[in-house]
């Protein structure tokens, strides 16, 4: 049954968990205090998301492997960097199956997702365009005519508005169908007529390095990693790793690793029972030897001390509207 809703998050983990329900795996590293709002609508063959984030952040995102996904930013002053390249206001990204990519933003930012059952999208794509249509093997940044993007955005916004204010109307099967049909037509028009931006060899190479970086990181989060070690594990030169990180994340590899580890510590502290666990112990577990330096960094990153995180009861960090 179709439906929709909206929710506000103050905790990246909870936001990530909601994205996971939409089959999007994301690791979000915020810079500064985090606040985000997720609006979703589930129609018959497609799902629509709007992700509004108040602070700049870096995210490592994996899109649903079973869905054909299209994402596009909504105009913001600072251009976001997706997969190492700046995304312009009218661009849309047609993702490959289960594509993994980094998104980094430098200010408040809104991005939209349309995900659809792939055979359905291909069927409509072929019929409406009267030509071949298939899911790309590699994610592509498309630059459709501005008129077409505007229509896609307008319909997307209408659906989100309904999900926010009148989710009952949205759950009416025929209303959902009417909206879905309109959105499919607009989507196919964008996907079948747009010019694709070509990414150079270097960019594609760096994208592979960044994914390898994440794979290494996933196994080694609990220990500090220095750059030579990282380079050895990823099999990449120091210079290439540094320039890839600068392009994709806007920070050095060391800094990113540190932020990812701090994020893990925070997750543990937040879920832990303050009577059973102390900050020093958790910090140690994640390889932060000097408690004072750790606490300072923690505070600089999350705007509160580690002990405040530990003391707070879980419910208060989560608001639902």
């Amino acid at each position, binding site marked *: 049954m179709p439906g929709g809703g909206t929710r506000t998050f103050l905790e990246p983990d909870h936001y990530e968990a909601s994205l996971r329900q939409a089959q999007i795996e994301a690791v979000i590293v915020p810079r500064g205090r985090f606040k985000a709002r997720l609006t979703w609508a589930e129609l018959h063959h497609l799902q629509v998301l709007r992700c509004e984030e108040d602070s700049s952040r870096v995210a490592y995102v994996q899109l649903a492997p079973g869905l054909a996904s299209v994402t596009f930013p909504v105009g913001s002053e600072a251009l976001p960097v997706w997969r190492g390249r700046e995304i312009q206001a009218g661009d849309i990204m047609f993702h490959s199956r289960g594509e993994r990519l980094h998104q980094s933003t430098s200010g408040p930012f809104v991005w939209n997702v349309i995900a659809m059952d792939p055979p359905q999208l291909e069927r409509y794509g072929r019929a*409406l365009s009267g030509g071949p249509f298939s899911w790309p093997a590699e994610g592509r940044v498309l630059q459709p005519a501005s008129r077409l993007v505007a229509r896609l955005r307008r319909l997307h916004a209408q659906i989100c508005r309904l999900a926010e204010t009148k989710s009952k109307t*949205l759950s*009416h099967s025929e209303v959902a169908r009417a909206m879905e049909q309109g959105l499919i037509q607009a989507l196919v028009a964008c996907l079948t007529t747009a010019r694709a931006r070509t990414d150079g060899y270097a960019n594609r190479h760096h994208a592979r390095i960044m994914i390898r970086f994440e794979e290494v990181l996933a196994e080694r989060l609990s220990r500090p990693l220095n750059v030579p070690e990282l380079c050895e594990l990823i099999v990449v030169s120091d210079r290439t790793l540094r320039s890839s990180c600068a392009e994709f994340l806007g920070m050095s590899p060391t800094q990113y690793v540190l932020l990812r580890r701090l994020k893990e510590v925070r997750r543990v502290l937040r879920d832990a029972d303050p009577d059973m666990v102390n900050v020093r112990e958790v910090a140690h577990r994640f390889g932060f030897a000097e408690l004072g330096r750790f606490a300072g960094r923690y505070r600089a990153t999350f705007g509160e001390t580690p002990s405040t995180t530990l003391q707070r009861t879980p419910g208060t960090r989560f608001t639902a509207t």
Partner: protein
Amino acid sequence: MPSSAVRTFTDPDEYFAGIRNLQIEGFVARGEFRAELTRVDLHRLFMCRFDENLPRVMKVTPSGMRAVIVFVTDPGGPAMLTNGIEISYRQIARVGLDWEWYLRSSAPCQWGTMSLTPEDLAAAGETIIGRELVPATFARSLAPPARALSRLRALHEAAGHLAKTAPDILAKPEVARAIEQALTEAMVFCLADSRPDDVRNVQRHHARVMQRLEEVLMANPEEPLYMAELSTQVGASYWTLRDCCLEYLGMSPKRYLWLRRMNLARRALRNANAEKTTVTEIASDYGFWELGRFSVAYRSLFGESPSTALRRPPCWPKSVAKASGWP
């Protein structure tokens, strides 16, 4: 027995249902509709004259039993469009024996038709010009010799005039026979000496797409349909459907489907019980989620608000009940 009748209509649905021998569904532009229909049945030849005050589109499903020609009767009037092909005052349209055709006008229009059975047409051809005339399978425009066409128009007008002023004279078998003979001769001369315009492949293709489109709509008479689905079901791309609809109906397929949904909603509102349902519910059932916009559009299209339509007890002419989802 020869007979004739003159009728005026203010309800488009009744008007379309009143055009005999042809199954017609149509859609009239906004405004107060008024049409006059003059029908003359001679022994074997039938003719009609039409005078309409508003632009309209109509889809005609022929019986397959009669060979029909269509032409403009008012010299100052606008050209008609048959399946998107312009028929000027110097031309006539010969419509297919069993292909649906669409007749579109862009302004108030006066037009006429004449028909014979294919056998009668063939026989008349043999007698008058010594060769058989075969009815068209596909609607096309013809440019008959000017003299033949103006004679056809003059006779047609005279017969129409008689139907209005002296129907009892027209009912006399010998008078009817004389008029019929003259009209048949004029029709044969118009058909015999005119060179048909070539039917281009793209026109055939579009005709097939329109046929397929109507089949899809007929197969789902109650159900709202949308562009993306229509394209998959008809098996034609958006651009092909757009070209076809603009050519045949003078509107985009999106607009056509929207009008169809509006008409379905109107039918549901008129049939519904005001105590058991609401305008919002019915609008939602046909995919309209913004009630305000729906109401405004409804009022400008049908001249009353949807809530008025809902409250009115469900009594309406049979012709409307019969009409399918075609707007």
